[in-house]
């Protein structure tokens, strides 16, 4: 007990610093450390898939941000209809984080999918893909 009392000041400072580090490292409401590493999935186009690849993914979750209902009709059980501006709502983020398989982003405009991809990647969400039309050519960097 005496020893604990002796080191109470040091322990308190250490605990404060440690909790600050842990909070910043694991806090999902903000962005994660190391932005370049989190963006690296976009370097060689490996984050791009076409529709024919979807059946090959296990436990996939399709985030459909498009105006069309085609994907909902084709993959009803694994499709979540979300407006791009509400992707960060708690229930949506929770669903994405809880999903055990890949997350596939779809939008009427490829630019929206690409922007949301970067945003979610920076939040530390891994295994995210963008669904593009099959005729879209990806040139490796």
């Amino acid at each position, binding site marked *: 007990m005496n020893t604990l009392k002796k080191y109470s000041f040091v322990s308190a400072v250490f605990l404060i610093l440690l909790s600050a580090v842990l909070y910043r490292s694991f806090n999902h409401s903000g*962005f994660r450390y190391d932005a370049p590493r989190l963006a690296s999935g976009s370097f060689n186009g490996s984050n791009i898939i076409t529709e024919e690849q979807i059946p090959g993914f296990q436990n996939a979750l399709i985030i459909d941000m498009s105006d069309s209902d085609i994907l909902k009709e084709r993959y009803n059980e694994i499709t979540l209809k979300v407006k791009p501006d509400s992707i960060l709502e708690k229930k949506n983020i929770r669903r994405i984080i809880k999903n055990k398989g890949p997350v596939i982003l779809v939008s009427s405009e490829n630019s929206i999918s690409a922007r949301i991809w970067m945003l979610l990647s920076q939040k530390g969400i891994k295994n995210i893909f963008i669904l593009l039309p099959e005729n879209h050519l990806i040139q490796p960097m």
Partner: protein
Amino acid sequence: MEMRIKITVVLLLSGLILALLPLSANRSFTVKPEKLISEILDPDVSLTADQVARLIVNEDSTIRLIDLRTPEEFSKLSIPGSVNVPYKDFISSDLYMYMNDMNIRNILYSNDGLLSDYALVYARGLGYKNSFAMDGGLDEWIDTVIESKFTGERISARENALYETRTKAANLFIRFNSMPDSLKSAFMTANKFSAKKLDGGCE
């Protein structure tokens, strides 16, 4: 325990915690997620090929075009006045080098627009509000500006102005890209000079 020992222990522990932090912690997104999403979905952060063409023809000095393609692609074909920062380099380097001047609007472009969309979010996430993306990239620029043709019988004043801008931008683009790399910079300087002279006006 003596005060100096306490301080020493605290400093050592702090050092240990800091050592555990990733080296690139200073390059993590600083903008709040909710704010960033509204910024990147705002139509004002995207420019059309026609808007970019007008800025180039008007020699707007408040813009800087950043070409995110590879040096080989850039050397083959690029929009006059643009600088080449390959996407990988853009992500891995300190953006302060390219975007520190907040009075300059940095317009990012790639081949199809995907890389520029990633880069736009990346730059804005790091707090560079002066970054914009050209919709559809160079592919869209070529379709809209370079291959622009008027096929109707009558042309409105507005269409005429648009067509004229596209023609001027296309001529500049073709002349610029037909030159060897060594002459491109001199061409841009000379072109600016002659355009200023043609504008007339008193000094």
